[in-house]
């Protein structure tokens, strides 16, 4: 079956613009995660969705970042008023159930803020 997909694969934007990144998890996976990975760095947790529970937003770096998920399907990560330090790869992952399960990652969206 299909894996986790993300779009766009690359995004170049100007400082101050808003961007929206999309993630399609594996069908049937109730948990969905967003991470940020700066060049040469590890993964930085942003937000976690589990079914209909309130999302864990503890990793969002500022109020310019927000994410939504419709049921157990698509999620969008929105960055408002982008800054140059937002440039990174944004990775989405999904897992079958509770957060401790194996995570399956998408290819990421490479965001460059000029």
């Amino acid at each position, binding site marked *: 079956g299909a894996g*986790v997909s993300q779009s766009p694969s690359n995004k170049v934007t100007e400082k101050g613009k808003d961007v929206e990144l999309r993630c399609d998890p594996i069908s049937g996976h109730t948990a969905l995660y967003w991470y940020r990975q700066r060049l040469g760095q*590890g993964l930085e947790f942003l937000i976690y969705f589990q079914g209909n529970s309130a999302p864990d937003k503890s990793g969002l770096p500022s109020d310019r970042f927000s994410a939504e998920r419709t049921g157990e399907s698509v999620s969008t990560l929105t960055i408002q008023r982008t800054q140059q330090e937002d440039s990174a790869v944004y*990775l989405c992952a999904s897992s079958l159930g509770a957060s401790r399960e*194996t995570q*399956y990652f998408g290819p990421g969206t490479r965001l460059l803020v000029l």
Partner: protein
Amino acid sequence: SQKIEQNSEALNIQEGKTATLTCNYTNYSPAYLQWYRQDPGRGPVFLLLIRENEKEKRKERLKVTFDTTLKQSLFHITASQPADSATYLCALSDTGRRALTFGSGTRLQVQP
């Protein structure tokens, strides 16, 4: 403060040798620990999971150990091949926390 440490320097080894990567953590009480592989330009791929009550886990040429007293996991690749060259990330799940926390990874380069 909480930390997950992996050797930031690349590990260079000769084909056929055993590669050993280290993951140390402080101020975590992980229920389990996972290892992922990441190739350039790609998302991480799950390799192995080891639980806190397990000392060792094997999968083909891969072996993971987990010492909760030392707060350390070792990841071994035996009979290494150039195709094993990648960055390897450890990740752990802290008790009571719902998401994984990742280390920054160690890059492995296997020379033919």
